[in-house]
């Protein structure tokens, strides 16, 4: 199979490598800056291939100074919380929208499409005022709710077509066997939805992990602030200490890169599904 490729196709492969390398150069530059000694970071001309690799910036920011660790923990709590909360809300909703003929179902889908378009920063002020009345500003809950407003419409929109593709005979057979709509949903349908659950969880997690808007506005207390705000602080604190800043950035990007490499297929299918109506 493999040796069926023509020389022209190998030429295309070489082109693809060059284009991708050029395109992803910024990410390469972030990682190499973080492992260079400071004098190499500021070398002129820029040192494209690092001569000496040192992990000083990582040791300084993860082991010697541990102030970054609470931010990482908060990011995990908020991102995982958002993924679970989004899933719990979106699963039954997308199922019902796909399966049952309900009045207002199309109207609700339309509302989801439109709310998806509102900039998060416009939601932040009303949510801030609402949460401050209930004394919820500076809580994980506030941040999870904020991030769920971004993730939920997307989750429902990409899940609905998935349920449409499951043959409806399955539930009918279950009902004959004595299930009601709830037990047939839990016993028959849920086990089939693993791939789409993975896609939705990945996206919600990544949305929340990268969120700055709600972190900036709904959390004024360092105790609950996620890593994106931690980086914000480092930008102020480090100024132009690019080796430290790039090390912190690489640490923050690492989960994204790992999740991305593991779930590539789910991410690509999620993006294409999300842009269909």
């Amino acid at each position, binding site marked *: 199979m493999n040796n069926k*490729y023509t020389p022209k196709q*190998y030429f295309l492969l070489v082109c693809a490598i060059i284009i991708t390398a050029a395109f992803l150069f910024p990410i390469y530059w*972030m990682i190499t800056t973080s492992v260079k000694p400071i004098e190499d970071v500021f070398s002129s001309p820029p040192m494209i291939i690092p001569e000496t690799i040192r992990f000083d910036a990582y040791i300084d920011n993860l082991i010697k100074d541990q102030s970054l660790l609470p931010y990482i923990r908060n990011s995990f709590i908020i991102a995982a919380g958002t993924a679970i909360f989004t899933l719990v809300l979106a699963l039954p909703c997308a199922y019902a929208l796909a399966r049952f003929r309900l009045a207002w179902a199309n109207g609700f889908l339309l509302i989801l499409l439109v709310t998806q378009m509102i900039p*998060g*920063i416009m939601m932040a002020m*009303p949510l801030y005022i609402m949460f401050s009345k209930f004394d919820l500003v500076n809580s994980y809950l506030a941040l999870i709710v904020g991030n769920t407003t971004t993730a939920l419409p997307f989750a429902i929109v990409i899940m609905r077509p998935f349920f449409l593709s499951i043959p409806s005979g399955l539930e009918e057979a279950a009902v004959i066997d004595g299930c009601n709509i*709830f037990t047939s949903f839990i016993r028959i349908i849920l086990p089939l939805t693993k791939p789409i659950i993975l896609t939705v969880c990945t996206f919600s997690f990544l949305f929340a992990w990268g969120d700055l808007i709600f972190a900036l506005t709904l959390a004024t207390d360092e105790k609950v602030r996620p890593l*994106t705000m931690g980086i914000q602080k480092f930008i102020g604190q480090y100024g132009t200490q690019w080796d430290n800043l790039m090390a912190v950035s690489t640490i923050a990007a690492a989960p*994204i890169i790992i999740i991305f490499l593991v779930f590539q297929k789910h991410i690509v299918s999620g993006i294409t599904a999300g842009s269909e109506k």
Partner: protein
Amino acid sequence: MYGQLRNRVPKYLFLLPAVLFVLTFMIYPIIYNIIVSFQNLTLMNLQVGAEFIGLDNYSKILQNDKFAISLRNTLIYTFSCIFFQVVIGYLLAVFLNQDFPFRNFFRSIMLLAWMTPLVITGSLFTWLFDVDYGVFNFILTSLNIIQEPINWLGQKNTALLAVIITNIWIGIPFNMILILAAMQSLPKDVYEAATVDGARRIQTFWHITLPLLKPQLLVILVLGIIYTFKVFDLILIMTGGGPVNATTVLPFYGYELAFVNFNFGESGVVATVILVILLAIASLYLYMIKKEEAQ
């Protein structure tokens, strides 16, 4: 058999949690923005309640120079980003639509640019755009395109351009994936017929590919405009709206009014303006979908 009501109610229960969430945390905030835009709500009277002051906030904000500048910057930003993202995304999609080893890997690996949190991309590009040690200035000076290093983010006439370039980079793979998916749904026999008839590549593009892709391209364009319009994170990280408002965009202006000045009423005006613009684009989008379905 089940009674009508017994049959219906449980089905709506599936929707209930999501509907409640959307109403409380999404619809209510949108309406609240509009209400607040007619009130003199600030941090001071947040607990006691504000008064309605009619159109005072509107006349104050809409006449403000900063509003006009933000609107202009938002439009320049949105349209130049979308134009280059779609054009470059299209070219990449054409390239990656050919058959060669590991092409699926190359298709998805570029998405890393899109997946990376904007805070990280923002600080990374601030480093790349650095005056003295930035890679961009190095490349441009060694290619003799510029003589002196440019202070990209520090001067009024290049700051917005630098943010635009950053966002184009982020958006290219996203557009590429969507256009690629659209291309793969095109019928193959038309192209074979065109090649038999001796059509040249440019001819096939203008007369076959573009008309066939048009409905999907329009959807991608509108979605892109809506997502680009939201720009906030990159501005906050890279320029903070400066120098001297050169990169202030509408969402950033609204943020400043609400969370720097704590004048919620005035921020509500900006939010309402954004809502009106987005609703106009959204109705255009829905109209196009309807038209496409009717065909």
